[in-house]
């Protein structure tokens, strides 16, 4: 009896090159992230961490190479991919004239997600009472970040792309964020975190990928992870959208 097909990778990049004008954002990235994995992308400023996440979210098209997110091309199947992916970026995507509650409700409904999680998500991020009725224009940077996190927690997409998620958060909010990431990973969500604060995220990740100059230059198991994950050589060409990947991810004890 044939063994069951390995699951399709949550993120698969092959020799991915992305440009901004003639400036290379990514210069040939190879990366594979298994479903349910939590990966830390580290690297210096300007290394390409943010661009990598934006490519995965379908915001930046590739000039060459191939990308699959949740088995789909994020540019061709833009709408389907984006409804299953959450990107926490440097911007909070808030409307200053709307209240915290209105911003969260709008973002969750726009994403087609179930609004039933909104109350829980806002409570978890401390966005209750008077704060929920406060206009976004009156929020601090850290509070805006918490609202963006509440949107992510309420949507609970299959793939979380977190760009410097701890930036601007106080100790309490950082702890809440860490717990959110742990809970997301426990529920099978794939999490890709770009950060140059490796000490904050390292304990949450199963694997650390170093990006330098728009390329993946190193990979290592995260310190303290129960199992380490090694990506074995994948296919030379990508499978059709939705098909299981030929490459596989092995968990190494």
């Amino acid at each position: 009896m044939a063994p069951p097909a390995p699951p399709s990778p949550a993120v698969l990049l092959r020799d991915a090159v992305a440009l901004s004008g003639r400036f290379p954002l990514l210069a040939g990235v190879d990366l594979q992230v298994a479903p349910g994995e939590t990966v830390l992308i580290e690297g210096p400023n300007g290394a390409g961490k943010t661009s990598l996440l934006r490519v995965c979210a379908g915001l930046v098209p590739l000039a060459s190479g191939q990308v699959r997110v949740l088995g789909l091309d994020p540019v061709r199947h833009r709408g389907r991919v984006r409804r299953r992916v959450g990107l926490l970026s440097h911007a909070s995507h808030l409307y200053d004239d709307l209240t915290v509650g209105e911003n969260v409700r709008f973002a969750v409904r726009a994403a087609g997600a179930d609004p039933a999680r909104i109350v829980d998500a806002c409570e978890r991020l401390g966005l209750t009472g008077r704060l929920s009725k406060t206009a976004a224009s009156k929020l601090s940077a850290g509070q805006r970040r918490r609202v963006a996190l509440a949107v992510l927690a309420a949507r609970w997409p299959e793939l979380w792309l977190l760009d410097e998620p701890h930036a601007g958060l106080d100790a309490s909010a950082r702890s809440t964020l860490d717990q959110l990431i742990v809970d997301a990973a426990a529920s099978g969500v794939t999490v890709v975190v770009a950060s140059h604060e490796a000490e904050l995220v390292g304990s949450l990740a199963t694997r650390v990928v170093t990006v330098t100059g728009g390329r993946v230059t190193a990979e290592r198991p995260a310190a303290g992870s129960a199992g380490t994950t090694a990506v074995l050589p994948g296919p030379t060409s990508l499978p059709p959208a939705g098909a299981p990947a030929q490459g596989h991810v092995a968990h190494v004890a």
Partner: protein
Amino acid sequence: MWRDSVLVAGKDLRIEARSKVALSQVAPFGVVALVMFAFALGPDRSLMARGAPGLFWVAVLFCTVLAVQRSVSVESVDGARDGLRLSGIDPAGLFLGKAAAVAVQLVVLEVVLGLGVTLLYGARIEAPWLIAASCLLGTVGLAATGTLYGALSAGLRVKETLLPFLLLPIVAPVLLAGTRVWQAALAGGVPADGTQWLRLLVVFDAVYVALGVVVFGPIQEAA
């Protein structure tokens, strides 16, 4: 698509209700423009009455540019446009929602400007249904083209100056047809067949609403 358009229109109108930009800034600007036109034309009431249709629509076009710029600018702050893109919202629904919100604001502005024209220029309306029909159809066309070209200019650093340059020539048919219909509807105006020009407005609306539904997504991604 319809669910998304209602969601987006509701959001934009809620923002407008809070900020009151259309009522506190755009409407007064339109009225000031009418007053300036009156100064330029001089004290001849009959001349002002004859010019009222064209001046009304020119003022509406100026207000459209401001309303569209406001509609674009609310998505420019804090990466809101990227937020909309990332939500996976239907681009056609987004286009229709934003156009609907602009259209609602334009209708309010047209009521204010219509009152201004009748009071300042002494224009007497003989066929109110023609006025209402031209305003309704003209508003749809202006909101659709404005939203489309607003998205086109959204990603550019020079969007504030580029938008009027792109938009005004495109909406010339609305200015022309709207003016002709008003001339037919006002007492003492140039005799004209208003319904013929209303048909032009219907065609203009159909073309730009359909175009917006189809191309708004790619424009949004490219901007």
